[in-house]
């Protein structure tokens, strides 16, 4: 499968917020949390565009 690696630069405070979110069971690890954010963010923008184009 074709994969693209994006290397996020995150500081310790940003990582702490991510880890606390992961601890709530939102995602299994940091990379998975980023991908979940991307998918949900893109989905909500797509829905917005669909809604506003009418």
């Amino acid at each position, binding site marked *: 499968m074709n994969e693209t690696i994006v290397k*996020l630069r995150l500081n310790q405070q940003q990582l702490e917020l991510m880890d606390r979110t992961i601890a709530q069971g939102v995602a299994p690890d940091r*990379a998975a949390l980023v991908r979940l954010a991307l998918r949900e963010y893109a989905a909500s923008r797509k829905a917005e565009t669909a809604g506003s184009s009418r």
Partner: protein
Amino acid sequence: MTTRKITSEWILEPGTGKAIELLKGQVLRIEQVEGGQCADFNCFNLHDYKEFMHCGRTRTVHGFHPTKGTFMWSAPPRERAMLYILEDTVGRNDVLFPRCSAYVYEAAYGFSVHTNCHDIQAEAQREYGLTPDDVHDSFNLFMCTGVDADGHAYMTRQTTKAGDHVDLLALMDVLAIPNVCGADVMKTSNFALKPLKLTVFEATEADLASVPTTPVLASQRTPKDFKNPVIKSDRGLRRDPDYRPEFPNTPIVLTELPVALTAEEVTMLNAVKLTDIYGDDDAAALRDILFSWWEERFLQAHAGAPAIEA
């Protein structure tokens, strides 16, 4: 009608203000006598004057016109709810404008002496040993203001009538200082200075039960948490040769987090990334998406405002 147990009453004459010891559980009513009068308001922790009401935090939490059901907050690092607006029969107060001052009346109107909120506040606060530098940004009761399309604050006439009032419930012991705004050549008080009535009464059980619970957090710090708890008592500033900076969470350290995106996810990223801000820096664009998503999904307060529900 509820019978109130009244502790004290005053008529605040034009040009004057009054410092009032308002204890936890007491209510200060600021009331229109004739109508059409703005009241400026300052408030200090009665037992530590370095804790005082902060219009900046108050307007960020409650908007530009805080009314019934909102709080007056103290400044960081205290950030506690000091007073609760229990009643407001008008619903038009202001936290955009500063107190009027002698400078305004001299510079814009040519007065060598004119009633002004700063000097009235200072004179009222002097009863408790405070100085003109201790007067802080005022919460302006009954003042009708807004923001125009250019981003400038404006003020206009008010529609208050005799008997209109705001009730402030003390959530801690405070020194509450209302004053009759000195502006008679502006629209603030409809071009006339009128008295205001002040009444202090005990809150009922029902009043107290109506106050929402606010958080008690470690970030609400008091002098016992300060590296330097001593109030500086002279005017000049001199460097402390023993000072060593201790900024929290420093140094800020960056960690690289590789994220493997599928072709479908790359398409998504390309569709939503903010190219005008981040150019071809996909890592920065994806970081933006991560924390923007987090705010949308998990943040309860307005961005930049703290959560105030306990």
